[in-house]
């Protein structure tokens, strides 16, 4: 990354053609198929995002990554797009801080702060853009949910789809179907862990875990006895054939210990085989 300025930096999918573009005057190379956001990050230009996650499909809900793009042949005309979803193109000129980008981003953050006046992540982001207090009517029932939909999208991505966004407009929220304990939920906590404001409540106690109003029986590590995964999660992933059910016998910590022990044994046993530098 430090060589970026001289050599151009690289981002994007493996394989494919390399594209050269410029982000705020910095030239950068990305692989075909990459988005402008990746190009900007590779060029070291910061663009705020809330609903973006590299492992998930672009969503385009938070609108914070707005940028202006143009091409020399467009005669000065610029197009306002979102960086997370606009494909990088050869010769594209990206401007991340034009007057209208900065101003629109400010309006969006002002609105978000009105929705989530007490959420540290939102307060901090707004402050960095010069907003201390919302100019709109602050939500009388403050929420930490920014509706980025990362939770529902990661759940979809895993092929579970236990939760979804429901209702239109200002009444939109994330909920299990019919507001009841979601039948498809496996208690894997992917939603709670991906949530940027940690606003999905759950509880893991001795032997059981509760999330979305559903309580799960836990599987204990056969070595240390810690309750490390829900039975439903082990069944789901084993049932899908990606891993054997035995994979879940040990918790992650014990698995690492076991692996380390194997390496040590190997390095002692096999001549010419050593671990580490």
């Amino acid at each position, binding site marked *: 990354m430090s060589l970026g300025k001289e050599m151009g930096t690289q981002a994007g999918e493996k394989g494919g053609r390399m594209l050269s573009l410029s982000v705020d005057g910095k030239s950068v190379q990305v692989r075909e198929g990459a988005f402008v956001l990746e190009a900007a990050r590779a060029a070291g230009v910061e663009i705020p995002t809330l609903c973006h996650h590299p492992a998930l499909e672009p969503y*385009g809900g938070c609108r914070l990554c707005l940028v202006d793009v143009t091409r020399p042949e467009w005669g000065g005309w610029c197009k306002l797009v979102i960086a997370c979803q606009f494909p990088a193109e050869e010769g594209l000129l990206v401007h991340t801080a034009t007057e209208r980008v900065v101003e629109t981003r400010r*309006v969006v953050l002002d609105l*978000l702060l009105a929705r989530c006046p007490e959420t540290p992540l939102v307060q901090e982001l707004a402050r960095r853009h010069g907003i201390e207090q919302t100019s*709109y009517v602050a939500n009388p029932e403050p929420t930490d949910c920014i*509706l980025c939909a990362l939770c529902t999208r990661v759940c979809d991505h895993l092929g579970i789809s236990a939760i979804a966004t429901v209702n*239109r407009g*200002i009444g939109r929220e994330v909920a299990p179907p019919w507001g009841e304990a979601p039948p498809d939920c496996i208690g894997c906590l992917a939603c709670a862990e991906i949530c940027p404001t940690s606003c999905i409540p759950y509880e893991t106690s001795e032997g059981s875990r509760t999330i979305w109003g559903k309580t799960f029986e836990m599987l204990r590590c056969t070595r240390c006895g810690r309750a490390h995964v829900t039975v439903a999660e082990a069944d789901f992933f084993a049932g899908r054939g990606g891993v054997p059910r035995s994979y879940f016998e040990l918790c992650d910590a014990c698995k690492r210990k076991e692996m380390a022990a194997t390496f040590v044994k190997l390095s002692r046993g096999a001549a010419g085989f050593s671990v580490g530098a």
Partner: protein
Amino acid sequence: MRIESEQAFQRFVAQARKRSSARSREVLVCCGTGCLANGSAKVAEALAAELAKRGSDVPVATFTKRTGCHGFCERGPLVVLQPQGVLYTRVKPRDAAEIVEKSVIGGEVISRLVYKDPASGQRIPGYAEVPFYQRQTRVAMRNIGRIDPADIEDAVAHGAYAGLAKALFTMTPEQVIEEIEVAGLRGRGGAGFPTARKWRSCRAAAGDRKFVVCNGDEGDPGAFKDRSIMEGDPHSVIEGMVIGAYAVGAHEGFIYVRDEYPLAVVHLTLALEQARARGLLGANILGTGFDFDIRISRGGGAFVCGESSALMRSREGKVGEPRAKYVHATERGLFDLPTVLNNVETWADVGAILARGGAWFASMGTAKSKGTKAFSLVGKVKNTGLIELPMGTTLREIIYGIGGGVLGDRPFKAVQTGGPSGGCVPESLLDLPVDYEKLTEAGSMMGSGGMIVMDDRTCMVEVARYFLQFLTEESCGKCIPCREGLHQMLAIFEDLVAGRGKSGDIEKIERLARGMQLGSLCELGKSAPNPVLSTLRYFRSEYEAHIERRACPAGICRELTAYEIVETACNGCHACFKVCPVGAITGKIKELHVIHHDTCISCGACFDVCPTQAIRTFPKKELAERGVA
């Protein structure tokens, strides 16, 4: 019987025409949704029964035909007698016997049922002479009201599928696209995108599997042009789609119809079956080797589901929410395959263009907006209904020429065009020629072709609030500027109409509007500020009055308006006394009436009924000065 050659098609047309002219007398009964709601099915039954009963007396074969919407919904149920072309309005089932006796058998015109022109006060018996029809030019709606939508032969006798035959038998797909280009056809669903360019890009897209889709979602409240076309002439939509599919190389099509349009689904389904049976749809169309079929897809009905990316998502069985369209649908649309999506009216234009030539279509309209356009004319106008006119017709001609002027001859204030996210155009622009560019320049848009006429009893701040409310409920909520922005904008407007406006509100509105226009994901959010910005542009002083003087100049906003009776004008007719819902008016017949401010809720009911215009509004805050609580 399937038609498998050009000769066979010509024979079919000739036979259909012959059958049609054999029915020398037709009684056309409008069975569009509007007339059905007014009881036209009963009228059709009564007429048919009466004709059957008098079978032997009727000198020539007479046939009752249920047609689609004639457009003049205000006057329904409508009955037209052919070949005389007599139009009867507001017909009741009990008029059936008289119509058959006097008009069908006797050839007389029943003056009571004839349309009375509100402008001249004259009775106009001829369908074609009624100004509402006379001033129209119908292309997309060419056969609505003329054909029985449930009878493909009747449609063919009136020219249906002639454009398709010409395209398939004599033209290459490229030539078809060129013809559409010459016509200058642009999308009728709102944005006005050039149809030929869309088709060409889809034709050029890689892959063998492509889709042709018809957008029949029509989510605008009050709009009904697409419904009327699908109900009244489903074949025009099917014909257009087959031609489009041939042009782009697609073999699968969908018509997306909202759930609230059951009659459209029935008529489309029937039309699809009949077209298939005749070889006008399905495998080996007209024996040319071209395969294409259409399925109907029913939609959940949210306004945003009409947006192209949301519509395709919902057709894929996913949540019907918009997504960014940086890759065109013509390359990656439905199921990520090349897709052409056009509006119902756009499709309905296609067959006529092919049959009569692109140059004919382009001879109507303005420099950049060619052909004709359908509008639904509603609100405070004498003649409401569905109309189709050449692009470039002025607002004045539409509202005064066809619409007959403002209801009750009140002063005209504005016309709202383009549906809920359109804008309001003021009186000073009445001579504006209506086309895509001119409406956009005026701060409004073509949108779905809705036109709501407003009189002087309209508060423009309240109008903006009303549309904001609709859009707030229809925003899907996916993106922040639209979801939160509309919510906050509505809050500001609720304060304005309640007299809680603050200085600085106008600037706040403008800043928020710009943020929503630039920041929102889809056109719903981007265009949502239109009603706000257009009213602010033309009626800024009304905003200022609400904020600075706590007054509603139009005398509408309840919290700001009080009512009183002008002593010299009241004739004591007692009408206001009867309508006041809270008993705030006292007075005896033929004596002066009085409104009691302590009970009056400022609903304005008295104002609307007073025959002598003796009711006056004034700013509520003056009540305090008068020493009234």
